[in-house]
Every structure is written in C-alpha cells, then in structure tokens.
C-alpha cells in the first residue's frame, strides 16, 4: 500500500508539472498582479491540460498527506524528490529544454541537498 502511494504521488507530480510547464510556455508571460492573476485563472479554465494538471496536483497532495500519516517525513521527502530526476529528464526530451552542464551540476547538487536535509 505504501509503495502504491509513493508511485501515485511521484507520477502525479511529474504529470502535473509537465502539463503545467507545457501550457505555460505556450500561453505567454504571466504576472502576479491582481489583473495578472485574473488572466491566469481565465487561462486555467480554458486549457484542458491545465485543469488536468490541477487534478494531478490534488492527487499528489492527498497521497503526500496519506503517506506522512504513516511514514516518517525523513522517508517521504527524499523519496518524493524522485520526481525531480524524472522531470529533469522529461524536460530535456519532451519539453525540449537545454540542460547545460552547469544546470545539470546545479540540479544534482540540489538533489543531493534535498536528500540530506530530508533524510
């Protein structure tokens, strides 16, 4: 049961972020002023992928809540950073982002840091 929750949480996070990044890249620059947020909300309800990404985010959040009820945070936080690795790969191959050596090195340092802080 625990591993089903972990896999659900990680996959839901990955899918949510990929869909969000894809749609937000296509919808131009957004801001966080009152008018900007209104435009952002209008964008979310019009784009099916963004609605799906919010559903995935909710699935991931409730899996996380269920996990921390039975497992220690020092297990849940590092294991959830698996999504970080999968997403960076998919960002390269699906979203066509350029992962330079510098960005890859920085991402690896952050990943190691998250595992150390959470573990």
């Amino acid at each position, binding site marked *: 049961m625990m591993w089903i929750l972990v896999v659900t949480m990680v996959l839901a996070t990955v899918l949510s*972020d*990929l869909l*969000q*990044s*894809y749609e*937000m*890249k*296509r*919808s*131009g*620059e*957004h*801001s*966080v002023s009152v008018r*900007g*947020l209104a435009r*952002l*909300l209008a964008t*979310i309800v019009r784009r099916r992928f*963004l609605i799906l990404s*919010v559903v995935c*985010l909710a699935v991931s959040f409730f899996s996380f809540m269920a996990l921390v*009820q039975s497992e220690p945070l020092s297990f849940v*936080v590092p294991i959830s950073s698996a999504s*970080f690795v999968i*997403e*960076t790969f998919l*960002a*390269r191959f699906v*979203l*066509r*982002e*350029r*992962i*330079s050596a*510098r*960005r890859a*090195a*920085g*991402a*690896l*340092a*952050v*990943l*190691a*840091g*998250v*595992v*150390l*802080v*959470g*573990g």
Partner: protein
Amino acid sequence: MSARASDLKTFAVLILFLALKAAGNWSLAFGMKQVPQRMSANPMLYLGAMLEPFVAAGILALILAVLARMALLSLADLSFVLPVTAIGYAIAVLVGKIFLHETVTNRRWLGTLLIVAGAALVGSTARKTSAIGAQAP
C-alpha cells in the same frame, strides 16, 4: 518586455512563491494543531478543519503559491524552476533554527549548503531555452 526586466520579474515571482509557500505551510500546520479531531478517510473532517481560521488562511496562501508557481513556469524552464524553488527546503531549515530554536545536524547544514549552491548555479543559466511557445501561441 526587455530580458533584464523579465529577469527581475522572474526573481520577484520566485520570492513571492517562496514566501507564500512558507507562510501557507506554517499557518496550515499551526491551525491543524488547534483542531481537536484526528483526521481520517472521512472528507467531512477535512471540511470541518477548514473552519479553523489558520487552516483556511494556510490553504488560501498555498493556492496562491500554486498560481505564483504557474506564473513562474510561464517565465522560465521547468528544469530551471525545480532547482531554484528547492531553496524552500533551505528556508525551512533556517526558519526552524532561528525562530523555533531547533537543533540542526551537520548533515542538514551540508544539505542546506548544497541546495543554496546548486540553486545559485542553476539560477545563473539562461532561464528559458525551449522552442515551445517561442512562436505565437
């Protein structure tokens, strides 16, 4: 907008996201401690917990944090946003140390240092490299 102005805007939205996330998590955790019932699979318990003002404020702040992160994803790559937003973990350690007087182990200090250094490294790369959305949507 010029690239320089967009860089500043990206930085401002990042700071706003980190602040909303930290405040939201703190308020949610503080509020949940005031709720007498233990949570279970019953969704009514979660709705009841939302009547607690700190829980409601925490959820509102976290919803705004999700929107700020979406705006951030319109300004920068996913592979840029993921490492730089991980600074939140480092902030949580510092807040725990400074405001809650928690003891921080050497292992966690090292982790915090790696997160900050890694995020700085990623932050120094071009924030938008994908061709998706480069044409008119």
